[in-house]
């Protein structure tokens, strides 16, 4: 297709003029960039296929719009360059929109998420106040990190140390082994850990933040965003969303958190 570049003249990347329009509406192909190590939103299933709540959503949305879909696992560090260069045309992966509004165009937010803190059950920590002087870790470049550096910076300042790890898996192994005192993470991850290690962990009642998941698009690509939002709404109305939430319930997903109605 040769349709003109999407609206929005302040689109960030300067070399856009030279390139073709690679958006899904223009090409009829939704190329989803996702972190394949981020269950339950996108991961490798037991059958070896890419699976996950968001990937299922992407497939359904593509079908609704008559797009073909291509699932592209990416190195999270390369997501911006990949998106800008057209190697992918959306990021759909439990992608928090808060704080990223200037860098991407988004679909309408579809899911509510919380950032929470998990500690060991017998650690004696039961509230945020108890975290004073303790070691807290989180995943690198995660929403929890953003919150602790942003809105909750005052709380973070009371910690003994706040560090990052490449992935939550390492972080929880450290929590179990006593190398750290607490992990800040997404609600779904916390619930999964609590479910698989009964009696080991405790989730603090107070959430660090609530936030919204949306589909991230190249800055200026509002056309695709609108199409996706529309399709998600229809899927909700058809009851498909509720079925999908059920499918991933054991992984900590809850239909109550769906907001795009």
């Amino acid at each position, binding site marked *: 297709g040769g349709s003109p570049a999407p609206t929005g003249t302040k689109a960030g990347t300067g*070399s856009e003029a030279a390139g073709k329009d690679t958006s899904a509406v223009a090409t009829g192909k939704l190329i989803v960039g996702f972190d394949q*190590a981020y269950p339950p939103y996108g991961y*490798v299933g037991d059958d070896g296929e890419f699976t996950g709540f968001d990937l299922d959503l992407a497939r359904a949305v593509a079908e609704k719009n008559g797009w073909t879909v*291509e699932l592209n696992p*990416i*190195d999270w560090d*390369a997501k911006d*360059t990949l998106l800008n260069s057209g190697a992918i045309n959306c990021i759909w992966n439990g992608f928090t929109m808060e704080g990223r509004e200037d860098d991407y165009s988004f679909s309408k937010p579809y899911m509510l998420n919380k950032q929470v803190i998990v500690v060991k059950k017998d650690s004696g920590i039961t509230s945020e106040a108890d975290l004073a002087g303790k070691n807290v870790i989180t995943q690198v470049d995660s929403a929890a990190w953003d919150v602790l550096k942003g809105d909750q910076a005052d709380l973070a300042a009371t910690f003994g140390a706040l560090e990052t790890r490449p992935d939550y*898996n390492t972080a929880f192994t450290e929590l179990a082994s006593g190398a750290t005192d607490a992990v800040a993470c997404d609600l779904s991850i916390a619930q999964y850990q609590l479910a698989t290690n009964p009696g080991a962990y405790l989730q603090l009642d107070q959430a660090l933040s609530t936030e919204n998941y949306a589909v991230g698009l190249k800055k200026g690509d509002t056309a695709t965003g609108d199409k996706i939002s529309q399709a998600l709404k229809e899927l909700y109305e058809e009851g498909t969303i509720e079925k999908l939430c059920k499918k991933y319930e054991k992984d900590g997903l809850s239909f109550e958190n769906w907001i795009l109605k």
Partner: protein
Amino acid sequence: MVTLLGSGFVTSLAIFAFTLVGALPLGIPIALMRMSRVVPVRLVARAYISIMRGTPLMLQMFAVYFAPYHLFGIQLSPDSKWQACLVAFILNYAGYFAEIYRSGIQSIPQGQYEAAEVLGYSRTQTFMRIILPQVAKRIMPALGNEVITLVKDTSLAFSIGVAEMFSTAKALVAAQRTMIPFGIAAAIYWAFNFLVEVAVGRIEKKMDYYRD
């Protein structure tokens, strides 16, 4: 799970094989340029080696992958990441191999060059017939080091989205919340590297028919 890792391993293997086929020969002219008496040639080779060894392969891969887009606005195709990956690997490893070749070449006694020179061998003939076979014997262990590093470096290909074994293992670790896929990946790496070692050892043994 093993089949999944297996298919990732095929990708790793392909990167490995193509890189060797490309970088092993490419290292030779670079090593020779590095030892050239012509100062600009030598400096170019030094700079090349310095940059290839001195900056992370991951960033080199980014550079090769995105350069056509950033510099010329060329849109990337799904194939291009595979090509970029191979180009970056070959360019990078050629730099390492060049230095290993150089160490071997410089350890050949002067008398060998002199004998070849007096017999009228051209520089190329001297190199191919007299020096290189003797170099090959001397550098085998160091080359083995680098080849084995290459096997594991294939995991860097994922930075531009080439899904090889290690990234698959990472994904499985995340999905299944167990370290077992890492264990299997380590075992596969180790098994393959064991083959590499055996192969290198066999080559070493084969060249053991002579001594200096």
